[in-house]
């Protein structure tokens, strides 16, 4: 019997495209260090740096790092327990269809 306990990583493509088509400033994130939940738009972003560094406005710990190379983009979320994005089921999905 085929092991159905996991799916191929390719299945992430569509959900992630949907996730990043939304306005992340409307997303909420939980700081792993202090536990506070707040909008991504409320992070303190340090941009005079080799990448973008988003810090918790309450405890200033790093919640997000974003590095853009010529070949790839990396979003590192260690420091963030969760990201929650507004995504009502009864509304059409945002972004190009």
């Amino acid at each position, binding site marked *: 019997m085929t092991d159905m306990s996991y799916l191929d990583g390719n299945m992430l493509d569509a959900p992630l495209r949907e996730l990043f088509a939304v306005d992340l400033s409307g997303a909420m994130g939980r700081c792993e260090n202090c536990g506070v939940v707040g909008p991504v738009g409320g992070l303190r972003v*340090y941009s*005079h*740096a*080799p*990448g973008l560094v988003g*810090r918790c406005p309450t405890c*200033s710990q*790093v919640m997000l790092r974003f*590095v853009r190379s010529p070949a790839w983009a990396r979003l*590192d979320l260690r420091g963030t327990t969760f990201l929650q994005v507004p995504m009502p089921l009864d509304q059409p999905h945002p972004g190009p269809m």
Partner: protein
Amino acid sequence: MGIVSPGFQGRPRSSEPALPPGQYLTQDFPVLSAGPTPKVPLDSWEFVITTETGAEYRWSWSELMSLPQETPKVDIHCVTRWSKLGTTWQGVSLDTLLDGIDTDAAYVLAHSYGGYSTNLPLDDLRGGRAWVAHTFEGGDLPAEHGGPARLLVPHLYFWKSAKWVRGLRLMSTDQQGFWETAGYHDYGDPWREQRYQGD
């Protein structure tokens, strides 16, 4: 390129290009920072080297100042593509600080006040190529540039020269630091343009 004045001293390699690939020359000193500037009072400042067996070697500010001082004049290269030539610093060589420390470690994680970190091979901190620097162009190193003291490892991209350095962890295996975990290169040789993982 080719903007180096003919009277410029201290760069004997005149046949080599003045700048690593992809870099531009700047005269000012851009401030790069991944977070708030930590305020570190000198009377509580310390520098700690921790070996792979857990042994700790500590220096207070006055102990650092009482060690032999060097005044390296070096070029610095930031991964955000600016380079600054002929900068003069003062500090204590890592050869001096590592002298007498018993270790078989091959790697170092430099860590800083404020939480920053970066990884380097231990060998790159030896041989007169790395310092704990506290003076820039004759004055106290400004806090926005890493004062009271920063690591200075000018033969690697400048993110390896950890600002507000607090200590070194000597390790048998490589452990990535702040920008390396976010995709930057583990070694970071500007002349080989090792900006990102995989370069």
